[in-house]
């Protein structure tokens, strides 16, 4: 394993271990997504189409991710570890990659609960929907981690992150909803792959500029 991959793995493991010990983000995300699905049941008039339900699932996913992302750099900020990480002798983009992997793990864990809950409350899932959620997680974690680092430098952190994140999440929702309900899910899944690729590379390349003092 190269030194870069080892750094990334160590950083991602650190985030997951920190969460296992403190448990402040993941339980909140789980509770939030199940509450949101419950609210959706009452928000949708009875007899609503499955398409509308699927659309609301995507809203739940985006906002749950947002909830997790607001906490992405909370531990580092509170203990001033980010400066230490930036000074550590590893490539700064490795910090982004480690953080993104950690974030994607949280998202997947939240969805392992959310998707069966959705199937139980509303209607069964299609494999296209599951594939689209998995692809969307990559994109959301990539841009989300970078934007969380940008928002962390501002005065209005928790307020700013949703504003920065939601316009960039619109294509994810278009691709995700399209893949879940359209008759040609392939082109929407392909679009999500493209989105992930483009924004992952851009975030990976620009993270260095965001954390350098």
């Amino acid at each position: 394993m190269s030194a870069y991959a080892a750094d990334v793995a160590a950083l991602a493991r650190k985030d997951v271990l920190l969460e296992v010990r403190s448990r402040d983000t993941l339980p909140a995300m789980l509770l939030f997504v199940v509450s949101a699905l419950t609210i959706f049941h009452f928000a949708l008039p009875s007899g609503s189409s499955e398409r509308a339900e699927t659309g609301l699932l995507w809203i739940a996913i985006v906002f749950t991710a947002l909830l997790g992302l607001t906490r992405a750099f909370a531990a580092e900020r509170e203990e001033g570890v980010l400066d230490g990480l930036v000074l550590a002798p590893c490539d700064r983009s490795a910090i982004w990659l480690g953080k993104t992997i950690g974030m994607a793990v949280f998202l997947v864990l939240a969805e392992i609960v959310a998707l069966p809950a959705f199937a139980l409350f509303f209607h069964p899932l299609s494999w296209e929907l599951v594939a689209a959620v998995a692809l969307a997680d990559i994109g959301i974690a990539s841009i989300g981690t970078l934007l969380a680092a940008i928002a962390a430098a501002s005065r209005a952190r928790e307020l700013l992150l949703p504003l920065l994140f939601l316009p960039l999440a619109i294509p994810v929702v278009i691709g995700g909803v399209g893949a879940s309900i359209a008759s040609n899910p392939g082109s929407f899944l392909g679009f999500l792959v493209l989105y992930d690729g483009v924004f992952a590379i851009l975030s990976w390349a620009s993270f260095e500029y965001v954390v350098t003092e």
Partner: protein
Amino acid sequence: MSSLNRGLPSAAFALLVGGFALAFYWAPEDADQGFSQKIFYLHVPIALTAYACFGWGAWKALRLLWTRDRKYDLESYTAIHMGVIFGLLTLVTGSIWAKISWGEWWTWGERQLVLFLILFLFYSSYFMLRYSTEPGPRRERNSAVYALFGVVLIPVSFLAVRIAGTILHPTIFTHEGADLPWQMLVAFLVCLAGMLSLAATLYRVELTGKRIDASLRELRELLA
């Protein structure tokens, strides 16, 4: 810093007046849409100018990250400021066009409008980012990175709105026919050149104003 030359404002004036005159008195009336097609010479140049501003802002942002020269921060900010103004004008004129063409002020089937709504939201957040971060190198770099995201978001959203249009909101109407009569094309190009010069003029004015602001602030600190 002689940033205000006379050429640009004169070109903007001559080209816009000339272009609009050509559009109204020389270009033939559109066979399908009739007189209402004249809004094309306003709406589309404004939309393209907005893209040009966003692109220019991203280019300056890239230069900032590359060279670490702090002067690019103000240039990138000003270009995006202009882009947001032209983007808002695109939304307003596009909405009027939608009203003429199919009687609705807003239609999700009109891709250009939807795309500009996304971009408008994105770049408004850019302003929020600037306002809520302390001035300094950190803000300059964060804004530059966000501006670069914007220029990547444009084609990505374009694609997204396009594929969504095929399934979620079927497009019934299209504005731009592939075969524009050459008189229309000439009038359109003159209007586009005029609009770009207007944007460049406003960019210069705004940039000069922002630079004077910055110099005065520096002067005040020196005197305090």
